[in-house]
């Protein structure tokens, strides 16, 4: 089973997320990543759902049956720009401080908050890049990490 990315345009109404999520979870499949946000059109939100479904065609049809779902596009990985945001809080001390900040900076992460014994970095990039950054920070002691869910857009019209 490979990863499938669904881009789902929905009406911005209460309960839409629950309806979409339950349509997928009905089959016992996990959602690897999900992000929801407003679009440039008033009253419309876009969900990006990454899942490993073997019956993706059927699930797409069933999602389409939901009254508040307007359009579903399965994104072609070859023609998709994908990104994700990460916030990572890592512990620092006098010895590690320089090394942590240097490594983060080389990874392209922005330091958004640095305290006495911790630093918070923000990184935007592909899931792979974020995974790599996480691995890089692990030895220093990750205190907390939040990822924003993958978002994607097709490169063609």
């Amino acid at each position, binding site marked *: 089973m490979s990863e499938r990315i669904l881009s789902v345009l929905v009406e911005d109404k209460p309960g839409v997320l*629950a309806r979409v999520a339950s349509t997928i979870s009905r089959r016992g499949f996990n959602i690897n990543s999900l992000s929801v946000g407003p679009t440039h059109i008033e009253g419309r939100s876009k969900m990006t759902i990454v899942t490993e479904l073997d019956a993706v065609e059927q699930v797409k049809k069933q999602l389409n*049956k939901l009254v508040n779902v307007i359009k579903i596009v399965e994104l072609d990985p070859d023609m998709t720009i994908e990104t994700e945001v990460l916030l990572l809080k890592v512990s620092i001390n006098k010895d590690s401080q320089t090394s942590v900040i240097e490594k983060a900076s080389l990874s392209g992460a922005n330091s958004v908050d640095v305290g006495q014994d911790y630093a918070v970095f923000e990184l935007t990039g592909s899931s792979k890049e974020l995974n790599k950054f996480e691995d890089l920070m692990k030895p220093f002691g990750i205190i907390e990490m939040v990822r924003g869910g993958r978002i994607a857009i097709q490169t063609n019209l």
Partner: protein
Amino acid sequence: MSKEQLTGAELVIRGLEYLNVSTVFGVPGGAILPAYDPLYDSPIRHILARHEQGAGHMAEGYAQSTGELGVVIATSGPGATNLITPLANALMDSTPLLAITGQVASEAIGNDAFQEAYTVGLSMAATKHNYLITNASEIPQVLKEAKYIATSGRPGPVLIDIPKDILNQKSDWVEPGPLDLPGYKPTLEPNPKMIQQAANLIKNSNKPILYVGGGIIHSKANQELFDLATKFNIPVVTTLMGRGAFPDGHELCLEMPGMHGNYTATTSIQKSDLLIAIGVRFDDRVTANPSFFAQNAKVIHADIDPAEIGKVREAQVPIVGDAKSVILGLIDALGDTKLNTENWINELNSMKTEFPLSYNQNENGPLKVPFVLEELQNLTEEEAIVVSGVGQHQMWISQHWNFTEPNTWLNSGGLGTMGYSLPAAIGAKTAYPEKLVLALDGDGCFQMTCQELITASTENIPVKIVVFNNGNHGMVRQWQKIFYNSKFSASELGHVVPDYVKLAESMGAVGLRMTKKSEVKNVFLEMLKINDKPVLIDCVVDPEDMVFPMVPAGGSNDQIILNEEDLKNL
């Protein structure tokens, strides 16, 4: 003109009147009480059920017999949870239903208030769509939307949950405006290219079968189906939900295929080279193991719900559209085509002769359900509405009753809800007080919703009920006999209690009983004479009887068990 201020409750009742709702079924309670106040003064008839499940099935029976919206009202918490079964049932059988439930006051939601349940969450997977009202002003528009969603496209249940404070909130009555449903646009007109492709397949087919179901009835396309079948000489199988869509007794009618379908109907599909599937969903009770289903056939699959096409069986020609438009399109595209199906029909006719449905009613032996059914049908001159429960009796009715009109056979096909029969019959009789409405039920089923007999008596809805009393969960017993080495675990109900005649009498109905062949006719005649009260017949039948033909679940439709003898080869 100044606008009239109404309460949310008044908006609900006014809205239902505006949508031409004439009858609602329900049970009141705390949170929905405000709605019952204006309902009292409304011309809408309210039928007070004894349980919300019953109220829901009544609304389903009303909807299934009329093809129009059925409406049910219940209170919050247990009122709403009791509705889940009829909602799920309506979803499976595509019945247009509107459920209105009271909810605890907005500020109490989520606080585990008295009689609070998360109705929208609970019913999400049991409805086509649902709503939580947050402002009384939304009510008229939401009601209009709900009716449209419930009755259009593939019909289904819609629930509207209204907190008590919203029912008391004042708002203007504003006539509902145009619908704004950007995500809901059912495709009714089929793609002409697909129709042409389908017509080409039909022209080149030697052994076509029209495999039709509930979609024909929802679309009111039975006349068009009749024209298509008879003009081009195509045999028809009608699924459990499609019984009556094409008249039994017609030479082209093969009746029901599947697990308990007749030999010819099931085998016709296996031998067919082209399935013209319209308004069906390739249910597992029809296909058995799909890998062995109609292996020689190409498939044209037309349905109003795109999610049905390709779900079970790949279709060479997929058609999304309303059954009536699809059929009219096919008739048009086929034009003057003459199909050479004579040999095919002859083959099927000899199959019918060789493998008829049969039963063996001994003169002094225990009653057999098929015999009783045939006697009853012989005595009923008019076209009755027959409402069944779930199990052996349901299969026997579908096999042995002659259905010639749509909407005259109501049953719980998809969900298989025991207890459906009596309340659904009450719903149908409410819609058609002049028609003969027969609840033909099993004893196990009847015991699940029998309190609705009180509803029938007190609301003056004289349905006629036949309880096929074999003292068992008959179909469970049949499976235990075949697959569990006759270990009858928890399937025996017993013949002793209840005394159905006394039970009927205590509930304001007439109770009759038949136990042997010689009594059948007279007891039925007596039943048919009584029209001012519900009548119940305790029909004591053979507990050992089994439904055949049978294809075990997951088996192949090429291996049909025709009788008890065949079981030895299992």
